[in-house]
């Protein structure tokens, strides 16, 4: 296990100073996923088991014989983080019952990127949600297959240029809208779904804590800016995450027992071009395409606000 260092400057009274995801991991400068995981493990604490899918996080955190994980961690394959977590959860339940495991609450996390969640891992994820395992599935979404070299996934947004959806004379890049993974998770009627972003650490920590304290399956969708794949400057990671929320490109909400609640409501949203302009993957877009993206974002945002309003009316 790597030597544990504490950072007491990290608002110690509110947030655990323990760093369970070690510094010195091999993430790129400005990696949004590494930042998210650092925060999530602060909410989770040491009584946590992480089941990782293959992907950036797995590669940067486990170059044998090094490891960045100060909690028990297992990586099996790409498409099965949820299935592995199912097995871990079932095992711990029965071992506890037979008096062969610690009798304390253990947070079980399945962790995957957007490819491991929305594409190749969707079946295993759906199965684990339907079976109601007591675990938290966390998708750190950087909107493409970054580990293999920025190939498009079904979570790549409309208009983004990737190595397999390149912008060219005949193409604007990704021609299809981003798959709405949090809503797919919510369609399983699981007790807790939330969207979050490491640019809003207190929101992320609170949602992670809620997810871990939920009995049954929970889902966190974490937008994780990626300087390498999005082609933005590495010091802008936090800023770009904020812009994603402030423009409404990535609204922060949670769905508790089926009721949707907006967490950060923008009185006046910034135009999406504020978000797009920092990123090389959108550089080729002209005013018409940007207008189209604005239209998609507006429509989705309004739909979410209406849904939140409706769900609130059910509570009265």
């Amino acid at each position, binding site marked *: *296990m790597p030597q544990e260092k504490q950072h007491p400057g990290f608002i110690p009274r509110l947030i655990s100073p323990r760093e369970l995801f070690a510094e010195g991991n091999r993430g790129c400068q400005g990696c949004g996923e590494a930042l998210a995981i650092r925060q999530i493990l602060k909410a989770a604490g*040491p*009584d*946590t*088991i992480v*089941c990782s899918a293959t992907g950036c996080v*797995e*590669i940067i955190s*486990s*170059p*044998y*014989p090094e*490891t960045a*994980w*100060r*909690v*028990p*961690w*297992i*990586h*099996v*394959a790409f*498409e*099965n983080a*949820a*299935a*592995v*977590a*199912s*097995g*871990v959860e*079932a*095992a*711990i*339940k*029965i*071992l506890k*019952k*037979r008096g*062969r*495991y*610690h009798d304390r609450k*253990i947070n079980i996390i399945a962790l995957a990127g957007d490819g491991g969640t929305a594409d190749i891992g969707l*079946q*295993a994820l*759906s*199965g*684990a949600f*339907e*079976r109601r395992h007591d675990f938290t599935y966390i998708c750190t979404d950087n909107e493409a297959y970054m580990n293999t070299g920025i190939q498009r996934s079904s979570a790549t947004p409309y208009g983004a240029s990737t190595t397999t959806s390149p912008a060219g004379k005949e193409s604007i890049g990704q021609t299809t809208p981003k798959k709405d993974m949090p809503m797919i998770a919510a369609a399983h009627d699981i007790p807790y779904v939330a969207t979050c972003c490491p640019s809003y650490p207190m929101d992320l920590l609170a949602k992670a804590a809620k997810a871990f304290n939920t009995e049954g399956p929970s889902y966190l969708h974490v937008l994780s800016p990626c300087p390498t794949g999005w082609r933005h400057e590495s010091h802008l990671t936090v800023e770009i995450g904020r812009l994603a929320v402030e423009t409404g490109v990535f609204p922060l909400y949670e769905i508790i027992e089926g009721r949707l609640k907006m967490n950060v409501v923008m009185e006046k949203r910034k135009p999406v071009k504020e978000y797009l302009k920092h990123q090389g993957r959108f550089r080729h877009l002209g005013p018409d395409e940007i207008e189209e993206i604005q239209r998609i974002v507006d429509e989705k945002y309004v739909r979410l606000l209406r849904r939140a309003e409706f769900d609130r009316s059910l509570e009265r």
Partner: protein
Amino acid sequence: MGIRTGMEVSIAISEAVKLSRAEVIAAYPITPQTHIVEELARMVADGELDAKFIMVESEHSAMSACIGAAAAGARSFTATAAQGLALMHEMLYIASGLRLPVVMAVANRAMSAPLSIWGDHSDIMAERDSGWIQLFAETGQDAFDLTIQAFRIAEDERVSLPVVVNIDGFTLSHVIEPLEIESQEDVDRFLPPFKPVIQLDPDKPISIGPVGFPEIYTEIKKQQNVALVESYKVIREIWNEFRDMFGREYHPVESYRTEDAEILIHIAGSTAGTARIAVDMLREKGEKVGLIRTRLWRPYPFEDMKKAVAGVKAVAAVDRCLSFGGQGGPMCSELKSAMYNLEEKPFIAGFIAGLGGRDITIEDFFTIVKETKKMLEEGGGGEEYRMIGVRE
């Protein structure tokens, strides 16, 4: 003391899993494995077996869940066949690479296309090199005993490898056989609770399944192979202990009427029952024919096999699997490889039979022996292999 009873072999395997006190079972239904998992589900529902049964959405997830459960320290079991086993393929290598003692029953079935739910060995042969310990059962008693032994072998800390028990789909899985079901006390004495070598434990956090760079990958694979090869000794040791406790003997290669035999039939699985009858009938006619059966397929019992065939003129190696464009059958190829460097070696004739549930009859074995003799008389040449019972 055990009870002598008649029981469907699938149910006997479920009994063995129950008596082994399995903790996590993850499975997806596929013919002809279904009776095993249905019975286990019933046992859990009726409170006869205190285990977690995960009804997964695919075989890929079945093996993934077993891997997760074993890493968390639970005794884990699954069962499958054919397409299901093929869907697990990727996970089989990971289970063995992570050295996790998962136990699996495979009700051997033909691979599609064309779709066939009936038995042969093409499913497991595609997983030959996946690093699992691989056993073949001939009878219901074999299937019951091997399942209990499989947990003991897999979990032995000198082994720490997954084990597959092969039973022929339908011709073994669905038949009712007389067998001895051992008592819980005796099975408990033979099989203590699982003590994991590595475990996901917050008090001792470890990382399982990291990235292995070229500087370390080869060494890890060598280590894994050494463990598999050396599991042979442990398997023999456990079989001796089993014999002393329950009175039934197990050998890597089983021999039947091989004394003074000139021709040996080689086969794996339940078809050996038919082969025995054929051997008896040929012996009555004065033909010097015997039978050998591979029980331990991986690690391959080279020395046992060399001993078993020493001094015979020919071996008729019958495979229930066709290696397309190759030498015919995988078991025949292996046998030939094992003999190649020997100075004195028998002529080995390859036969393919019993594909996709096609019966292998006593007459088929007569044909096999007759053709082997003919090839031997002609100086041991001829084609690499022959397919038996083809309607032309």
